[in-house]
């Protein structure tokens, strides 16, 4: 190797090292730019919620015309006075919401896992047709079936009770959850059922002792979504509950708006914050399940 070629070679390595370093710097800069953009975007996304929390602690004259998020003198009293600002206390509304939500979650998990087990694991005549019909109900807008359902419940004397909100959940009325669970059940190895069947287990035993215990993540996901949607549900309670004593939290919040002059914005925001607090808590604790649930079922 001559001297000249070795210097050329050294030059080349230097150049390529320089190029590689350049590329690394550029990649780093791109990543930094990405983070700056994403942080700015997440701030914009979260800002309305932060503003709501801030406003719940502000005196009325500080709420509007201000972008700031720090109340000059935090008014914790907004929470205590807001709790009792309506003719019925929020203790009542939260209790009502809790009753409806807990019963709905139980109903959804039991009835939808039954149907999902049948569709995912059992053979029966007419299965394909029933499955297609079940998937079609996903598309039906609630507004279309609402009127005849209302008229039926009116006949039964169920209006102004929680029955129209809860009983349908025990009849697997949310096909979305059936679909979600079917997706999950299908991932469980078939050999488990077959082995159990050979050992003489009935389908009921298999459901109870094998499928359910192995599907806790799916059940949790369904329970969480069911909780969130029932807790936030507005149309159902709006149609079926007319007595303020029976109101759920969303209906109560709406009363802040329908009062002639909303003079107490701070109280309204305070109760709004409390109303979404359970959802945020659930989200923080069960985020993993929620995000996987969406990826698995591709919905909402």
């Amino acid at each position, binding site marked *: 190797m001559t001297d000249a070629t070795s210097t050329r070679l050294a030059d080349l390595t230097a150049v390529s090292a320089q190029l590689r370093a350049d590329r690394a710097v550029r990649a780093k800069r791109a990543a930094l730019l990405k*983070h700056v*953009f*994403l942080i700015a*975007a*997440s701030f914009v*996304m*979260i800002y*309305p*919620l932060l*503003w*709501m929390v801030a*406003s719940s602690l502000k005196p009325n004259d500080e709420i*509007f015309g201000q*972008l700031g998020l720090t109340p000059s003198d935090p008014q914790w009293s907004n929470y205590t006075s807001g709790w009792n600002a309506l003719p019925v206390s929020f203790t009542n509304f939260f209790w009502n919401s809790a009753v409806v939500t807990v019963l709905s979650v139980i109903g959804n998990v039991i*009835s*939808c896992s*039954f*149907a999902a*087990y*049948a*569709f995912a694991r*059992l*053979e*029966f*005549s007419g*299965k394909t047709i029933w499955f297609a*019909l079940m998937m079609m109900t996903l*598309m*039906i*807008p*609630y*507004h*279309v*079936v609402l*009127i*005849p*359902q209302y*008229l039926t419940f*009116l006949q039964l004397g169920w209006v102004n009770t929680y029955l129209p909100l809860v009983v*349908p959940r025990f*009849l*697997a009325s949310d096909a979305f959850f*059936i679909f979600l669970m079917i997706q999950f059940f299908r991932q469980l190895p078939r050999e488990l059922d077959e082995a159990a069947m050979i050992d003489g287990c009935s*389908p*009921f035993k298999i459901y109870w002792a094998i499928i359910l215990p192995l599907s806790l993540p799916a059940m949790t996901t369904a329970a969480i979504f069911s909780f969130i949607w029932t807790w936030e549900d*507005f149309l159902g309670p709006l149609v079926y509950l007319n007595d303020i004593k029976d109101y759920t939290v*969303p209906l109560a*919040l*709406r009363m*802040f*708006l329908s009062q002639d002059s909303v003079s107490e914005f701070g109280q309204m*925001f305070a109760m*709004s914050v409390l*109303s*979404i607090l359970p*959802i*945020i808590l659930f989200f923080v604790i069960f985020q993993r399940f929620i995000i996987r649930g*969406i990826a698995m079922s*591709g*919905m909402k």
Partner: protein
Amino acid sequence: MSIRSKLRRSWPGYVFLTPWLIGFFLLSIFPILASLYLAFTDYDAVNAPVWVGLENFQYMFEFDYRFWQSLKVTFLFVVLSVPAKLIFALIVAMLLDKGIRAVGWYRALFYLPSILGGSIAVAILWRQLFNADGVINSALAVFGIQGPYWLSDPNYSLYTLVVLAIWQFGSPMLIFLAGLRAIPQDLYEAAEIDAATPSRKFFAITVPMLAPVIFFNLVLQMIEAFKSFSGAFIISGGTGAPLDSLLFFTVYLFNEAFSYFRMGYASALGWVLLIIIAAFTAIAFWTSKYWVHYENERG
């Protein structure tokens, strides 16, 4: 197989299916048929329904300007909100896709609004954000822009709901993320060797490979947009005000049924909504064969 042995094999399936079957007939089939019947009647929920033939539909199409207004508002909402929502969802999903740090945090923060967006608390909040002296106008004022009266000016009111819908781009974003992960990386590596530009990579690889997911999100978000109710109901004070500019189809239907007790007419409206949603889903499926390519049928 004889019918008997078929039945014997089938019965556990039907036992497990029973709650759903009861619900299916009582809460879906019966109400759908009942609402079809009611659509041809005049019914106030007190006196027996009176058969009026096609009168409800005739009135709807020929004279009911609020029906046409509600259709216009709803379509406008779908057209303005769905594409923008999907574009945001795709941009953010692509930024989060390539092994970025703290991806879990971003994902959670971007998804949070989707989970809260349907609540009344957020609808109430939105009303205040778009108040004449609310946050939006204060922010615009920083840039020297005089914001409009969002809530009382019918030319602007719909945008409050469009922004609310776009704010909830989290779930299509998560679905896009899952879709992006499924694209084989060697396609991008091959393109890099050919010195393809980022935009060429996007249109030649990402878009066609992601087409089924885009299509899925499009259909789903369209249906959701047609059905949306609470936001418009709360922000318009329950009536579709100002000047019916927030008269979503669902809000109109709700008021016909439960404020004026015109159950027959409201049922007719319900069937129109059902047909619109079914038609749009069918169109989306039908046109999908021209632009959606599933990976396993390449060629």
